[in-house]
């Protein structure tokens, strides 16, 4: 039988039951490879449920550093009978299927073209542990131990992770190491180890870290000076505020009084959450909220107010599959248009698109500077894949001494020395950005009325059409200013006739696909969007390429629409590569589509080749 042979290049998938502690065991597996110097990209594919439903965890290992989802499964570790029939079908021919052999496998499931590895996990647990919860938890650790033998994972690395994980709870170290050994020895005694797929220590991760984007964003909020977080729980954004809470408890307690230098309010709904952020920002604090698709719909009215009344607002949208409740635990980039034009009337919102946890950190911190500089909402669009999965990332850095950019705010002294009348919406500098004052600054000067209704430059209510139009024009001027204030796109390659535009979590798979294309002689330039509004570099990139692909993870080509709308390009000039099954886009998909178009073969094959399944 064919046995897949690979060193440091494979995909392993774990099929578990949710609520059984499997994610931490699977993370331990991924971290062990990471500590052996191997690039890994773990992805948790979980149900919208707390206990008892199938859940999967996929890890791609690739020493070249490709971190996007590859597609296909080389090794399946299946400890969930519910999903076994489907799981076994997913394994590539020549791949490996590790299962709990305490009961004989249903003969109808057995595939002759894959390698079956039985480990009697339940029997071992029943023999070793009396407590049912321990039996469940250690089962996961035992298969990690077995994998250590089967794949040649350095056992010391695993025990090191166990020690780190249970620092402060040392008595848990020994039983966990014992469980690892149980699996390890069983595999050694019963199978030829390593199997065809194995790992070898490399030095390919440098000083990188493994962190999820939501945690990185929460740290960005702390470093960016946020003091007020108001939110309503919603998957997959919840861990942003959880992270903020966790790290504020460590980093934001006033040493003298023990009081909190921050406030977190779990609001009654998303409307209230964004309302609180707007109220706090209006009153001079840095405030933020985090939500996902349904929350964006609910926050839209307030986003219009913040746009029109010009109140800094920071919103992190961790996108999931919509519409409506959609697939709440699957990833997508489908809030692009809802956010870009959030709210009724003529509104445009500034968007940021991070691709890595480091960018989640940097852009969250920067979002506060941008919001206060531009006096408008800043929406950072991340997604479930980036937000909730541990991603390999550059380490987080902060330039000590960095000052926050608080924007145009007049203080008491400036107001005191002001001879002319204060005009909240007066464009004194010609950049469309007026001056604001915080409530309570000066006894007699600088007070104004903030409102969502039309008003003149002095914030006085008016229904004069000319005044209204003048204000709307100034907001457009501010929009132009924003184009050169927001992060510029990242352009790689120049002079080729084919270009791809991508953003967010499509980056890894896009860059991998570009490498494959290069190997086949198709040279491609790429532009990664980091923000909306688009600046001139985006127009230039589109204009300077004959064929431009737009890669995105939604059905309706929302980013393409936005480009067509804002860059005034013809829809014909942009070719969409779309992925919206709720799983991250793969390099294979991008590669296939570009090859098909570039080679003039625009026909989707009726039967996909084996090994190309996703």
């Amino acid at each position, binding site marked *: 039988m064919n046995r897949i042979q690979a060193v440091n290049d494979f995909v392993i998938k774990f099929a578990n039951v949710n609520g059984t502690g499997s994610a931490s065991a699977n993370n331990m597996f991924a971290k062990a490879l990471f500590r052996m110097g191997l690039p890994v990209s773990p992805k948790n594919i979980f149900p919208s449920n707390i206990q008892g439903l199938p859940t999967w965890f996929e890890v791609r290992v690739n020493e070249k550093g490709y971190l996007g989802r590859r597609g296909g499964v080389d090794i399946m570790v299946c400890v969930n009978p519910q999903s076994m029939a489907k799981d076994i079908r997913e394994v590539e021919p020549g791949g490996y299927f590790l299962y709990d052999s305490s009961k004989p496998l249903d003969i109808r499931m057995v595939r002759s073209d894959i390698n079956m590895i039985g480990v009697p996990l339940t029997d071992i647990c029943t023999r070793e542990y009396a407590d049912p919860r321990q039996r469940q938890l250690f089962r996961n650790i035992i298969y990690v131990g077995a994998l250590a033998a089967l794949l040649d994972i350095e056992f010391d690395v695993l025990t090191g992770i166990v020690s780190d994980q249970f620092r402060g709870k040392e008595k848990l170290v020994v039983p966990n190491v014992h469980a690892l050994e149980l699996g390890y020895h069983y595999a050694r005694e019963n199978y030829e180890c390593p199997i065809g797929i194995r790992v070898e220590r490399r030095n390919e991760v440098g000083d990188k870290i493994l962190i999820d984007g939501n945690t990185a964003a929460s740290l960005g909020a702390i470093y960016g000076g946020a003091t007020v977080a108001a939110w309503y729980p919603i998957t997959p954004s919840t861990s942003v505020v959880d992270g903020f809470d966790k790290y504020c408890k460590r980093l934001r307690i*006033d040493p003298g009084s023990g009081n909190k*230098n921050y406030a977190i309010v779990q609001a009654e709904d998303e409307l209230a959450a964004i309302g609180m952020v707007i109220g706090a920002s209006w009153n001079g604090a840095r405030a933020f909220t985090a939500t996902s698709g349904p929350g964006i719909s609910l926050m839209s009215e307030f986003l219009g*107010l913040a746009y029109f009344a010009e109140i800094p607002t920071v919103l992190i949208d961790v996108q999931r599959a919509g519409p409506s409740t959609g697939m709440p635990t699957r990833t997508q980039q489908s809030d692009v248009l809802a956010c870009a034009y959030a709210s009724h009337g003529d509104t445009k919102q500034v968007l940021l698109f991070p691709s890595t946890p480091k960018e989640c950190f940097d852009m969250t911190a920067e979002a506060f500077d941008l919001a206060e500089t531009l006096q408008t909402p800043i929406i950072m669009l991340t997604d479930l894949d980036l937000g909730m999965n541990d991603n390999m990332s550059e380490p*987080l850095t902060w330039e000590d001494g960095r000052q926050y950019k608080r924007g145009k705010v007049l203080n008491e002294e400036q107001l005191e020395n002001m001879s002319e009348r204060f005009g909240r919406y007066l464009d004194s500098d010609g950049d469309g950005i007026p001056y604001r004052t915080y*409530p*309570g600054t000066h006894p007699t000067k600088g007070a104004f*009325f903030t409102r969502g209704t039309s008003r003149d430059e002095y914030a006085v209510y008016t229904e004069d059409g000319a005044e209204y139009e003048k204000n709307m024009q100034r907001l457009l001027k501010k929009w132009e200013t924003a184009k050169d204030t927001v992060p510029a796109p990242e352009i790689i390659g120049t002079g080729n006739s084919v270009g791809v535009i991508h953003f967010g979590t499509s980056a890894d798979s896009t860059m991998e696909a570009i490498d494959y294309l290069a190997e086949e002689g198709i040279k491609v330039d790429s532009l990664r969007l980091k923000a909306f509004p688009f600046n001139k570099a985006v127009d230039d990139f589109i204009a300077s390429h004959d064929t431009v692909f737009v890669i995105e993870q939604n059905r309706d080509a929302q980013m393409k629409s936005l480009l067509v709308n804002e860059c005034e390009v013809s829809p014909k000039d942009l070719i969409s590569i779309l992925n919206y099954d709720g799983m991250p886009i793969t390099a294979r998909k991008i590669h296939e589509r570009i090859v098909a178009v570039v080679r003039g073969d625009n026909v989707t094959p009726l039967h996909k080749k084996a090994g190309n399944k996703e």
Partner: protein
Amino acid sequence: MTYQRPNFRHPNLPVNELGYTRKDYEGALSTLCAGCGHDSISAAIVQACFEMSIEPHKVAKLSGIGCSSKTPTYFLGNSHGFNSVHGRMPSVATGANLANREMIYVGVSGDGDTASIGMGQFTHAVRRNLNMMYVVENNGCYGLTKGQDSATADVGSASKKGEPNPFEPIDLASVALQLGATFVARSFSGDRAQLVPLIKAAISHRGFAFIDVISPCVTFNNNPASTKGYEHVRDHLAATGTVDFVPVKQEITTSYPEGESQEVTLHDGSVVHLQKADPELDINSRRSALRLIKDYKAKDQILTGLLFMDEDSRDLHEIIGTSNKPLRSLNESDLCPGQKVLDNLNESLR
């Protein structure tokens, strides 16, 4: 609406302790209908703030949408104001308060803005005991959209259109009491003598101070069949008693007969003195307040005055333990942990 207000001020106008005249607490000209109850409430707020010698710029005025929510333009012109979106003033006030605990927050809303579209946010602001005065200018109808019944309209009450309202009313004072509001009062826009000391007490109270003010809509809901018109309210008014607000620096000079009065000392040392009209009322008992509201309603009377207060109330900041310094005053050195912390964190993530 009033088209003109003379600029002339008598040179010997009385000034308060800060040297401000009453005019320094006024706002822009009202554009509401002549005789609107809301204008009387604005005037009462002006009088209370003037007499309490509050620095006008230390007040933030917040409102939602509707006739009532327009009124913050018409008082305290030297204060920042925020006319937010319909029914959402409580969340904006919550955020504003979190940013700076040292200011005074005055929220003005209406019965539509609070009892319908904003019911959710209202109840949660109550639960959190947000430190603010929340005034509902309650006229039983939607004035700005021409007189539709609101959720506080009594069963059988008919507005100018003449159709009696078939639905049960929401009694906001009772709702506030049930949800744990720490200061609840009801008043009538036509009773300035009662309203001004209630506003003073509400501003001095630490926590959520709710005043439901019946404020007739002269244009759409002031007809004989309406239970929120001037005539009906005046005819059916009852009061829990007379409220005196004695600021901290002032000595109590009036003597009150024993047994018929109750005194409450606020956290800042000021005193609220209630001369009780109904000996049944215990100002520290929610139950007593809820029962009396029902009893008077059964007698077809509207019970006004101070209904309940908890002088030991802890506001949102105290509950969640935020810094005594306003959060907005914290700077980079207070807020940003620096690279060294990140170095350790990065190391733990390898």
